[in-house]
């Protein structure tokens, strides 16, 4: 049920994005990319903890803001230093996204099939 609701939220967001006339300036696109990955990671983490029944609102919100800001800050620092520091954030979030997805898959599968 919860997964369906979040997928619905994703669809609403996509529709909003399609019909909004805004676009992101080139200079900020790197930051937005990293913010997307951070938000994706937080969202999947939220689903997972929700399915596991140990969801905490404060943890969720603080994780979302802290992750996004840290990722953007790291990107900015990388730009200042002339190194691709944002790759570190991409790798960490990428790994966590896979982990969270694997956990969610197991939890959801466990609900419908119990082999």
């Amino acid at each position, binding site marked *: *049920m*919860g997964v369906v*609701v*979040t*997928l*619905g*939220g*994703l*669809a*609403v*967001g*996509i*529709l*909003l*994005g*399609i019909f*909004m006339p*805004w*676009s*992101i*300036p*080139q200079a900020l*696109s790197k930051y*937005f*990319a990293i*913010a*997307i990955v951070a*938000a*994706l990671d*937080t*969202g999947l983490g*939220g*689903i997972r*903890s*929700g399915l596991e*029944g140990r*969801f905490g*609102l404060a943890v*969720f*919100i603080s994780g*979302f803001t802290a992750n996004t800001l840290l990722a953007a800050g790291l990107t900015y620092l990388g730009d200042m230093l002339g190194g691709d520091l944002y790759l570190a954030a991409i790798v960490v979030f990428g790994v966590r996204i896979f982990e969270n997805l694997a956990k969610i898959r197991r939890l959801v599968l466990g609900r419908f099939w119990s082999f």
Partner: protein
Amino acid sequence: MEKNWQLPVSIVSIIVGFLVTTQIKSQSEQRELLPSRRLEDLVVMLKTSEQRNQDLLKELSTLRAQVKELESGKIRLAKKQEASLDLAAGLSPVVGQGLEVVVQDSAKPLAKGEDPNTAIVHNDDLLRLVNELKAGGAEVVAVNDQRLIDTSEITCAGTTILVNKTRIAPPFVIKAIGDAQTMEAALNMRGGILEYLQFYGIQVSISRKSEVLIPMYSGGSQYKYAKPAAPAAPQESK
């Protein structure tokens, strides 16, 4: 506990969806604006624009020939004056006695710790050679067949040298029409440019020619901002 995680997570997923689509949209917009910024593509873009430049120059010369034809049909009186103006403006090829100076990078192997920058020909070197030739009485000068006119530049653009906005590459051949003996003497002056270049191992060979052919200036119209003004009134002598 079970229910209240769905709302915040849904909000976050709305944000994710929104960000993803806006990002994809603006990325594809930018891709249309700037097809690609990769080095290989930029090289191709440079090549094609250079090719186009060449084509336009060709067109320009045929059009200029047509203009000449039409003019010669119309005006014969001003012909002689035009010829001398064309000569001064670099709009006709010229021939005469003069020098041919070939300049090449140093062939000596670099000693340890030696700056490789000193072994290559720079735009400054060409500029000084040309200046020396002019000081020695050169009337018309060309570098790699780029006729030097009043607006011609000899600049450095990355690893190449630009003359008349055209890239030139070694060996640099400077042709100068004028009194060959004086110009050669000007170059060979003690403590002069030739000695300076030879110190750095730059290879310079000078040959006198009884007939040096310098092509016409191939660029377009030079004056966009400058307009002829009324000539200043002749100053009365006291």
